[in-house]
């Protein structure tokens, strides 16, 4: 029953079956270093300074608005009763979600041995860390007395109390801080060999000192690589668990409640899918910019963009399933409150937000079925921007629309965000992109060590390396 096997060379395959190249051109390990590390040593182009100025301006506006909020109080925001939780939690969920794509690319694809991941893993992990930093601001400032935020941490205190571990808000604190520290450690461990390369390339004394300290004396010893690889793989496996659990814990913030529209058992996987969805859109947008401005088209190829767009398309379909099921259950539950809340999404005060969500999350990404949209910058940026907007509005719809009309009509109230709300949202985008811009000039955007591992001929022949 065996070896009557068809043997066709790759070139003999029909066009639809051939794998597009993951790497373009003849690339040597030294060439990777030259191409990627040179950006760290060169002065940035003018465009970078302009971009930096814009993002810093946005960041400063955000900081000013946060300062104003701290001085004056949460009354500066649009929160009211019953919409007591609005922009702050929307932005928090939004940014934490965006972080998950980076961990998926870095950790989960490592476990799947998807070698194409190596060109984009470093940048995605960095985006994860920056996104979680942006997210972490919001729980901090949205409490009434941020200077007492340390109350959330379980330390022995003279008040004689402990945080309430049965509350999903505390689960959030633990989950997000774990996610941040694990991502940071994972990113840093991955960086170490690259920092060693930088240390050995640099000529300036201060830079050499900084890189030497940061590289911790890494010398590429085989006995070190052995432990390093095992640890890296194990942390990737653990980080995979975090991808599922952190956004599920965030979804528990809503799902453990009794509110119609919030208490849906599908929330955990629905939120995780939404996170990957939004995150990949952000990664696509950022990688398009990086790839074109830093001339890395031979390393971050069309293949990468195509696969990421396919993931976005898959997530869009999964989100469609989730919306369908929400709608069906809203009817099937025979619970008039759940039904009312769902009708509010599509026909209520905020129906414009509901329809924006559906259009941007389900309808527009379907354009990615077309190869043109998957392969051309204009197409994929259009879809990615739509997804980012759609995913923000999805959280808006879930939180604001569900809250503004709950059980008692006497408690119903419209929510209107204030300029401070908008300013802080703008500031979070400013912070994120400022950090991304800084990262791109200070550290290598591609993990050069990992890149060298997947070049053809990188491993000894008798291992019989297969294709990507």
């Amino acid at each position, binding site marked *: 029953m065996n070896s009557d096997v068809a043997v066709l060379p790759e070139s003999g395959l029909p066009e639809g079956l051939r794998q597009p190249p993951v790497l373009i051109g003849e690339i040597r*390990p*030294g060439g990777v270093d030259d191409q990627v590390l040179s950006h760290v040593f060169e002065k940035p182009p003018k465009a970078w300074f302009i971009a930096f100025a814009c993002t810093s301006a946005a960041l400063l506006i955000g900081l000013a608005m946060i300062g104003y909020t701290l001085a004056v109080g949460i009354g500066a925001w649009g929160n009211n009763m019953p919409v007591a939780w609005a922009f702050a939690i929307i932005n928090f969920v939004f940014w934490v979600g965006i972080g998950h794509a980076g961990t998926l690319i870095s950790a989960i694809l490592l476990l799947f041995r998807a070698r194409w991941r190596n060109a984009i893993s470093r940048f995605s992990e960095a985006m994860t860390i920056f996104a979680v930093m942006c997210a972490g601001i919001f729980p901090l400032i949205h409490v009434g007395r941020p200077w007492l935020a340390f109350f959330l941490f379980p330390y022995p205190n003279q008040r004689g109390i402990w945080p309430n571990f049965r509350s999903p808000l505390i689960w959030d604190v633990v989950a997000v801080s774990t996610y941040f520290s694990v991502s940071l450690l994972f990113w840093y461990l991955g960086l170490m060999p690259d920092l060693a390369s930088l240390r*050995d390339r640099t000529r300036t004394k201060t830079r050499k000192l900084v890189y030497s300290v940061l590289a911790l004396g890494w010398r*590429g010893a*085989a*006995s070190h690589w052995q432990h390093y690889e095992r640890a890296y793989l194990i942390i990737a496996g*653990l980080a995979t668990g975090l991808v599922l659990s952190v956004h599920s814990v965030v979804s528990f913030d809503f799902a453990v409640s009794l509110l119609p529209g919030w208490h849906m058992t599908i929330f955990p996987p629905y939120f995780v899918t939404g996170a990957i969805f939004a995150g990949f859109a952000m990664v696509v947008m950022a990688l398009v910019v990086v790839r074109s401005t830093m001339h890395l088209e031979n390393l971050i190829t069309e293949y990468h963009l195509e696969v990421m767009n396919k993931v976005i398309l898959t997530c869009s379909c999964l989100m469609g399933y989730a919306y369908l099921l929400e709608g069906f259950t809203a009817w099937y539950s025979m619970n008039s409150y759940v039904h009312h809340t769902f009708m509010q999404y599509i026909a209520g005060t905020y129906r414009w937000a509901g329809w924006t969500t559906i259009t941007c999350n389900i309808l527009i990404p379907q354009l990615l079925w077309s190869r043109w949209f998957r392969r051309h910058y204009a197409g994929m940026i259009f879809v990615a921007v739509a997804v980012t907007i759609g995913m923000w509005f999805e959280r808006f719809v879930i939180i604001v629309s569900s809250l503004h009309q709950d059980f008692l009509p006497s408690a119903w109230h419209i929510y209107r965000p204030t300029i401070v709300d908008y300013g802080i949202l703008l500031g979070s985008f400013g912070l994120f992109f400022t950090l991304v811009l800084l990262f791109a000039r200070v550290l290598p955007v591609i993990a050069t*060590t990992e890149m060298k591992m997947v070049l053809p*001929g990188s491993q000894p022949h008798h291992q019989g390396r297969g294709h990507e």
Partner: protein
Amino acid sequence: MSKRSAFSVVGIFESPQLLMNAIPGIKAKVTARLEAYTPYPIEGIDRLLGLRKSPIGGMVLVMGIIGAIAGLSFELWTSGVDYPLRTAGKPYFSWEAFIPVMFEVTVLFATFTAGLGMLLLLNRLPLFRHPMLRSKALPLVTRDKFALAVEAGAGELDPEAVAKMLQESGAESVEVIEMPAPAGPLSPVFFFNAFAAIAVSCVLAGLLTYWATKLFPILPPMVHMLDQPRLDPQRADSFFTDGFGMRMPVPETVTHDSVPYTIRSQDYAGSLVNPMPRSESVLHRGRQAYTNYCAVCHGVLGNGSPSLTAAYGAKPANLVSQKFIDLPDGKIYHVIMAGKNAMPSYAADIVESDRWAAIHYVRVLQRAMNAKDEDIPK
């Protein structure tokens, strides 16, 4: 040839294949320790070099389990034993609610064991004094070359012989790395300095944190909750022209369950009828009211000999005298409501029912202080 012996001899190879080919031959010929330096991990090199399997998996499993147990126990202890708190009617030991945090703590413990265990324990990094870091070979390695180092370790190396062996095995160049100055790469001084630095930083951080936690809450805007634009009791306030924060009730203010008392003169009060029955409970209540409010001036026995000192100028009335025995209830009630001479109005102090009850009690006192023989029970 330098008098100082060599630390290691390093051969540089062009490709991983050449490196792997060279290792078995060299390993057979020398007893010294072999180490390979590569820009990225090479598959199969662990076996060739005879490296033992990494123990990191077991370490992570153990610490992960410890993390899970620690996390869950901490939650159970804080929420069930030390500060048992009923939330949403859930039992104290609600394991379902404790699983998310337990999971995260497990991941945290496991990850940091993997990362820090790998770095600090197994690889002994950070380490900045290793001679390889000062070699010319290392920059080549981190770029794209592959190196095999024969390390002297405790023994002696013949650098020339080893260099020849490496070249014969296919090395494109060879470098001899000298033994560093006697303060070796793993000097106790380094560890002591590191430890001392960490200890000092911990103490400093602790002091700084303590100072910050004391200072921070009293800085604005943290103090804004204490400093509120409102009237506090017993405080002056510039809002009112007389500067008093606490105000008297507006004149003619009545409590919401009272009827205004409009009789202006005691002469017209005589027609008021005592609405309270003369029952034992009312008399007890009257005694209590009289003792609380009236006895201080009129005396416990009602005879106007109070516990007040002579320094108190006014002379309270003797309630058990004939004048008062003849006085109707209503006129006594009028004095309670409107005051008389030095006695102020007690309308605000005694509720309506208590006023009449106290009057009943005064009658009791009057009879008791003017008792006749017939009053003694047989």
